[in-house]
């Protein structure tokens, strides 16, 4: 698959449902099962025909067998950390949509960010004999005892959004979470698209050592090397995912590279907004006199309003609804073929695609 095609697909989600279009553009670290699951088999077939064919046969067989025996009472339990946050409300809504589609019964609990409540929530769900548990942990390690209870009861557990600690013997079928590496790649493709083949980029990293910071950085840097090898990263500095640090660090970098900067790529929106302030206060411009291109990550309201105003270029959005849908999909798939996941290591990462947001596709 050519890179140009990937970029085009990723940036024109209108042709497909957005997640589908993005899935098609993914390379390398994707889990092929998603494509199969979304009825998107032909795309995977292009890449790795044999493996894909095996999946296809497995799913087809599973559908035949499962179709006959699946019962309407198949129940999925979804234990959420909180519903006091729009992100997780969207996860729930997505899960409900998908459950309705497949005629699955979905039981949702809200732990209100309280670990004790979540443990008793999960115990209740085990008592109700749900077939599969989707757990969005309030705490990676704290939720382990409840997960072990589910393991003992023979109920498969998927982790949603937040990882569950599997180092102490808890069994998790898979971790379903946003693909930060892929988000970094989208940023790199956007840089290539806006700057063309040459230019100077400033990179603002998150908290050193945090997994989101590492993933976003590695995705961005590796993709930039392949799509725009002549674009230089002239400064690469940490700013702690924090707006104040983003502002200070960018002020300092502007002093070191006056009149040389074409774009700023930040690992989250708070830093991007801070950098934008530094640029505006200094009145800094690109070498060609145009405004410096600022790209963020997370799609918080603050950055969306800057994109709307034309001051910021773009950001990367997670897709919580898709996350909920894929959680139910995974549970559904397990109901059709219990061997489906048997080849996976416990806690395998199943990435949920993220989406580039520009002025063209701003959410209303």
């Amino acid at each position, binding site marked *: 698959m050519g890179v140009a095609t990937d970029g085009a697909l990723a940036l024109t989600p209108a042709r497909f449902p957005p997640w589908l279009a993005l899935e098609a553009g993914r390379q390398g670290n994707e889990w092929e099962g998603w494509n199969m699951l979304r009825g998107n088999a032909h795309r995977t077939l292009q890449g790795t025909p044999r493996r894909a064919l095996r999946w296809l046969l497995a799913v087809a067989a599973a559908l035949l067998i499962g179709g006959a025996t699946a019962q309407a009472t198949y129940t999925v339990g979804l234990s959420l950390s909180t519903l006091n946050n729009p992100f997780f409300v969207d996860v729930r809504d997505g899960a409900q949509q998908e459950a309705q589609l497949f005629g699955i019964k979905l039981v949702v609990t809200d732990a209100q960010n309280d670990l004790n409540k979540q443990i008793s929530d999960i115990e209740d769900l085990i008592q109700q004999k749900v077939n599969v548990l989707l757990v969005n942990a309030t705490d990676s390690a704290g939720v382990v005892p409840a997960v072990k209870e589910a393991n003992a009861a023979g109920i498969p557990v998927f982790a949603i959004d937040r990882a569950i600690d599997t180092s102490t013997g808890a069994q998790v079928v898979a971790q379903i979470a946003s693909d930060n590496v892929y988000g970094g790649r989208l940023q790199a493709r956007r840089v290539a698209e806006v700057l063309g083949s040459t230019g100077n980029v400033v990179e603002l990293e998150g908290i050193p050592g945090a997994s989101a910071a590492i993933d976003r950085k590695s995705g961005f840097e590796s993709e930039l090397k392949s799509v725009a090898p002549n674009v230089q990263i002239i400064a690469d500095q940490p700013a702690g995912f924090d707006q104040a640090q983003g502002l200070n660090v960018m002020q*300092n970098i502007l002093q070191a590279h006056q009149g040389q900067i074409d774009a700023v790529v930040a690992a989250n929106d708070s830093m991007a907004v801070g950098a934008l302030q530094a640029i505006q206060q200094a009145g800094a411009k690109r070498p060609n006199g145009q405004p410096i291109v600022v790209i963020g990550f997370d799609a918080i309201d603050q950055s969306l309003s800057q994109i709307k105003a034309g001051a910021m270029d773009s950001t990367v959005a997670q897709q919580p609804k898709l996350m909920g849908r894929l959680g139910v999909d995974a549970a559904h798939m397990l109901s059709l073929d219990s061997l489906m996941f048997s080849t996976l290591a416990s806690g395998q990462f199943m990435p949920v695609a993220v989406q580039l947001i520009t002025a063209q596709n701003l959410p209303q």
Partner: protein
Amino acid sequence: MPEPSTLSARPRRDWGQIALAYGIYLVLLLFVAAMALLSPNFLRVTNLLNIVTQASTVAVIAVGTTMVILLAEIDLSVGSVAALAGAVTAGVLKAGGGADPVWLLLAVLAGLAIGTALGALNGALTVWGGIPSFIVTLGMLSVGRGLTLLYTGGRPIFGLGGGFSAMAYGRVGPVPVPIIILVVLYTLAALFLHTTQLGRYIYAAGTNRRAVALAGVNVDRLKVGVFALAGTLAGLGGVLLTARLDSAQPTAATGWELDVIAAVVLGGTSLYGGRGAVMKTLVGAIILQLISNGLNLLNVQAYWQQITKGGVILLALLLERSIRRVRGGDEM
């Protein structure tokens, strides 16, 4: 203090004494010289003004913390208190809607009031509750952050209108407003500590609480007052930060208590109380910001930054202490 005497006037300058008093300034000069050699962009006027402006929020808060530490107490809650004050100011501004100067003033006062209230509570719990200030303010660190998250709903408050951010970005002639605020505040604080009776009591109560009490001073009330003032100044720092970011972040100023304490200690104020000078705290805050600026200018890799920053702070302290030892004394 040496008595003025025409008979024993010493013709030789006492370099040791000078080094003792101005050690931290020498360290600052050394760092400036080193950075000027390492980066051609360092000694630009804009860059130097940037450094002081960037240091201003921490430096404002550090005035209050210096006084608390002079009393041999500690305040770990300043970051959270600053965040809450900034959020309340932003909230009031939003409610007022518009750049009406009366609302602006009201919003700033609301922020300062919240800071003062939490600071006074810190003091009251320490003095009358009999709980060590380390524990009281550690609790307040958590409570303040929780209140900030509750107040903001975990989301930034933004779109505050242009008038407010002038506090951070306005200029009087060529000088940015935050630098003017710093100069005024530090001058007032130094005058207060060194020339007023109350200021001298703060020094004295830090070393010998009993003597001050016997002199008829209500040390308890003095302490609560200083904690309240530290709260006000933390609030002011938070308001300035909100103006600078043109938004209130729920996680703003996280971990700043450590930067503030580092600035105070770099400035030579003793953690055991009674010794220190507020002007040197300002130098400490500027040195801290200078290190960050240098790391950015030289594009030092992220993991190395943490090592370098800690190492340079320790080096600065060592330098300052060894300059003191030139004269063998450890007094102010």
